[in-house]
């Protein structure tokens, strides 16, 4: 559904270098790499937000629907949670079902700024699912949540992924534990310009514990 053929030299992109990869149905990718290396830039490019990278370098199958959970919730603060979901084309009954799934049925009529950080993020997650995405992009979904809330959200996302087996996911994270629970494939982005150093199915390290993954990452980044 997605093919990346970014050539750092011809694109003249200031952050992203040579990146060649394919994303297929059901791929669950965790995108790892040091801070500031360009992980969000890559997600934006995949979402079609980077004008410097054209169709030739980011080939998306036609009518690919991309749901994007940004780092901030980016809900419209002047619209209720329900209206924010309706805005992307969800019907009322779908909205009720989605909000129930993410545990926000009670606050459907609340404004985003009335919600806590974790709730707002779940509302934004519900919105990214409301468009029935083929590809779900998550940008550090667990950042600035306390460990309990982060674990809750991780379980929620695991459940949602299980419910939509054909949906592909790319999740930016710093934590190898996230990768362990969510991913079946790892991308490791590093260097300047940033290049995909490592693209490996997690099944190859099926028994890999979180510590082994992070150990591998440490070795790679040295």
């Amino acid at each position, binding site marked *: 559904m997605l093919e990346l053929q970014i050539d750092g030299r011809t694109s003249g992109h200031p952050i992203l270098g040579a990146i060649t990869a394919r994303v297929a149905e059901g791929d669950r990718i965790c995108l790892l790499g040091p801070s500031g290396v360009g992980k969000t830039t890559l997600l934006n490019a995949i979402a079609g937000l980077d004008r410097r990278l054209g169709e030739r370098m980011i080939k998306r199958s036609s009518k690919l629907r991309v749901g994007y959970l*940004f780092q901030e919730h*980016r809900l419209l603060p002047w*619209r209720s949670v329900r209206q924010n979901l309706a*805005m992307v084309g969800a019907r009322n009954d779908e909205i009720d079902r989605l909000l129930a799934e993410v545990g926000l049925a009670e606050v459907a009529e609340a404004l985003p700024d*009335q919600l806590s950080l974790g709730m707002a993020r779940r509302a934004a997650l519900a919105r990214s699912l409301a468009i029935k995405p083929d590809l779900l992009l998550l940008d550090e979904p667990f950042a600035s949540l306390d460990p309990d809330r982060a674990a809750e959200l991780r379980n929620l996302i695991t459940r949602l992924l299980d419910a939509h087996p054909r949906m592909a996911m790319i999740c930016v994270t710093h934590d190898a534990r996230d990768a362990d629970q969510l991913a079946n494939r790892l991308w490791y982005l590093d260097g300047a310009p940033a290049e995909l150093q490592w693209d490996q199915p997690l099944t190859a390290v099926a028994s890999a514990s979180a510590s082994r993954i992070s150990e591998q990452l440490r070795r790679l980044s040295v």
Partner: protein
Amino acid sequence: MKPPRWTYWIMLPLAVVLWAAIAATLETPLLPTPSAVLDSLWQSLQSGELQQHLGVTLRRVLISFVLAMLLGALLGVWMGRSALANALFDPLLVLFLNLPALVTIILLYVWFGLVEAAAVLAVVINKVPNVAVTLREGARSLDPRLEQMAQVYAFSRWQQLADVWLPQLFPYLMAATRGGLALIWKIVLVVELLGRSDGIGFQLHMAFQVFDVASILAYSLAFIAVVQLIELALLQPLERRASRWRAVGVQHA
């Protein structure tokens, strides 16, 4: 801390009392007493003159206000969004911002004659640059992150305008409206004084020629009352309605 409510009701009555005292001691027609002004106000109300001229002035204000807001907002947002448009129009904007209103009015009357279109156009030309500058600031402050969101979720043009841009531009539109009304009122009066045969400005001109200070003050009072009415009945409720979501965030924080 907010001062108690009655403190708002001190200076204005005091000014009226002072005015009445001075007028009573001087006993000159050049400074009529408050009651003489009220009398004059009542008389022009009874004769229907006040309503007629006020109506004409209000119509001119409304037409030029709508035109100036529309043109100014379009120009301002365009300049705020496009560096090229800004480079092209910024020198013109500076020129027109510094052009005295009186010059525009005189030139348009000279070129087009003492006609209604020239009068309205003069007001619009005076106001458009102010609106454009305010809305340019607004357009520059639009949140690019919400714009990315709107692009990812394929918002329609209309959604982008009504649900992403307009709520962010609203405070700037209100500022332009407030400043706009105050400025347009004043320019319309000058336009009427210089070249129309009706409207409050024209009436003030007539009163000036016979030194009828009571009429001048009466018309000014009626005028101020109408402006306050628009502020209280129209602008403030609109502002409260549209900024309800802001208060929410503050409470939460």
